[in-house]
């Protein structure tokens, strides 16, 4: 599963980054394998995405989110 497939409110753990197509800055902003991501909102036109990465807010475009492989945390919206 990739980051752009998350629905608002869903949480996931980053598994792998396709670094050939991603800037170093993404890692520097705290997004790397092992980080927990939560999709908060999508912009009204479906892009960009408003996320929380380990609790820190970050906004990225869909094309970037498509290069981020994640694993859904299945307790999702019910628990914390």
């Amino acid at each position: 599963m990739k980051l752009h497939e998350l629905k608002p409110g869903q949480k996931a753990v980053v598994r792998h980054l396709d670094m050939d197509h991603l800037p170093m800055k993404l890692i520097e902003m705290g997004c790397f394998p092992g980080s927990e991501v939560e999709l908060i909102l999508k912009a009204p036109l479906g892009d960009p995405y408003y996320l929380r990465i380990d609790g820190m807010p970050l906004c990225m475009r869909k094309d970037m989110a498509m290069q981020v492989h994640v694993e859904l945390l299945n307790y999702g919206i019910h628990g914390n």
Partner: protein
Amino acid sequence: MEIKIALVGNPNVGKTSVFNKLTGLNQKVGNYPGITVDRKTGHTKINDTLKATLIDLPGIYSLQPASKDEEVVLETLFDPDNKYFPDLVVVVAEVENLKRNLLLFTQIKDLGFPVVLAINMADQLTVQGIDIHPRMLSEKLGAEVVLVSTRTGQGLPELKQAISRYAQADTRPVLDLTSVDADYFRSVDYKTWLSRSQGAHFEGVTVKEDELTPSDIKRLQQKETVKRYQVIQNILKETYSKDASKATGWQARADRILTHRVWGYLIFFVIMLLVFQAIFSWSAIPMDWIDGQFARLSAWVGAALPEGKFTELLAEGVVPGIGGVVIFIPQIAILFMFIAILEESGYMSRVVFLMDKIMRPFGLSGKSVVPLVSGVACAIPAIMSARNIENPRERLITMLVTPFATCSARIPVYVIIISLVIPEQTVLGFIGLQGLVMTVMYFLGFLAALLGAWLLKKVISATTRSYLLIEMPPYRRPQIGNVLNTMVEKTRAFVEGAGKIILALSILLWFLGSHGPADTFGNAEEMVAQNMEVQHLSEEELQDEVEGYKLRTSYIGMLGSGIEPVFRPLGYDWKVSIAVLTSFAAREVFVGNLATLYNIGSQGEEETRIVERMAKERRPDGSPMFDLATGISLLLFYAFAMQCISTVAIMRRETNSWKWTLIQMVFMTGLAYVSAMLAYNWLK
């Protein structure tokens, strides 16, 4: 004793507030050579024996440079011979995103500087449900840690005390680089590695030949950054906790409304409308006042000094020229006040979030919205506000198309022409046709900006992949001190940067407009007396005739007449050509100069009189001069042409390139010319 302290930190942590609190108004803004990154320095007293020069470095996320801002920081911290090489670095962080902030902290510390960590926004701790143990954090990081709040002033004395102990600072690195790659880092320290991985050469750092390929380097950089985060994570586990349930609440609700598909855009639209309304109405009073004061000063200088060329230059060239710079200050200050408030409050990031998708097909990003929309007030502050676009290509395109937005100086021109050629009718029973055309003109400006951007996107090749990675800072109440500082800073940047060029060009235009060959211009009174039936003219009317004759025979008038063949395909006679040419000084001059040319100067410049007089103007064949074809041609010319010398000056400063400034001028004027010509010939 005086030491040098560099302030470093992520954007949005309130680094500049810390700087402002420490230095007060005792600060100076300069420019780094060749680039438009502001360099701010200031002075402060640390204690009775220690004084400090503070350098506020640009906000960055990491020492691996991705932008001009980051390069500046690296250059300052790498070169011991640099004028601003610090004795100590204060890394500013904030309570909420401490983890992200600490990445930069560890990088700076590993360079071997004495470092103090100032964690800002300590007043937010309880609200956000955050718990920090500064003592333990300090032990683990090997640096002094101070909790501060620039809002309440908390922790600032402690920050100074921590700074004063800089000589005893622990300078051991946080990250053991051999944990990244045991082999490679056995003989390479962090500083050497940074120079190696940047492919840059820094004074005093020798880089050994090695066999790393670019992809090896990228892999090592990634590994290093992840390792740093792991170290930070381990440290924070014991020293920092956050109660997630407290953090959201009203902030999340505000986000849902402000980025809503309907309310979000509507609120943005209303805010922008209010901003422009304020720029228009608030700046009108100081602008009139400035205008009046400079006119008085000019008259006073003319009267007080002995008559002569020098007095003329001073009274009619220099003083109005300076006035032409000062007149922009209210608009610039007011626009940047709003931008600062919107940025400080956290709303600006939401605007970027809302608009990014819409702007992208045109080679722009969400960050281009503010400059483009601000262009409706005045292109000068608008172009300056493009600075916070990191991607150089997006920034350039934004600046190149911003002057297409219909600036306020074009309004008097549009009003006159529209009232001349567009009939006072209503369409659909309730929409005034004249008002509708005015709206179309604004729309046309934005359309030209977007299409221009789209074209430029095809032409300017991308050197770096465009991406958008921005923080969504929490909503906060703006700090008045910071807002005022931004206003002062931007105004000063304008006066110092573009002011000189505006002044020089205004003086040149004044000279060309007020001087001419001796035999015609010099004998204006006699020539008018000879050529015209002047007996029945009143004193005033005679004076107007003379003024008109003078403008016609001045150098600029000759230039205008000379250029008439160029403008003829657009439907302009020599009078209109002169007015168009001179309005390059400032758009609003068009109306005044037409008034002078039609000899109605001293009898008041009320628009109705000018319109009446212009409506009577005939071509040699007896048809009206200002018919629909000429009118539309003029409207289109003013919609697209490069507006004024001040815009040229600010473009030169902000792009640091005459090439792009000239390309923009030629492109815009070319588009104006062709569209005006097509419209004229089609409608004729």
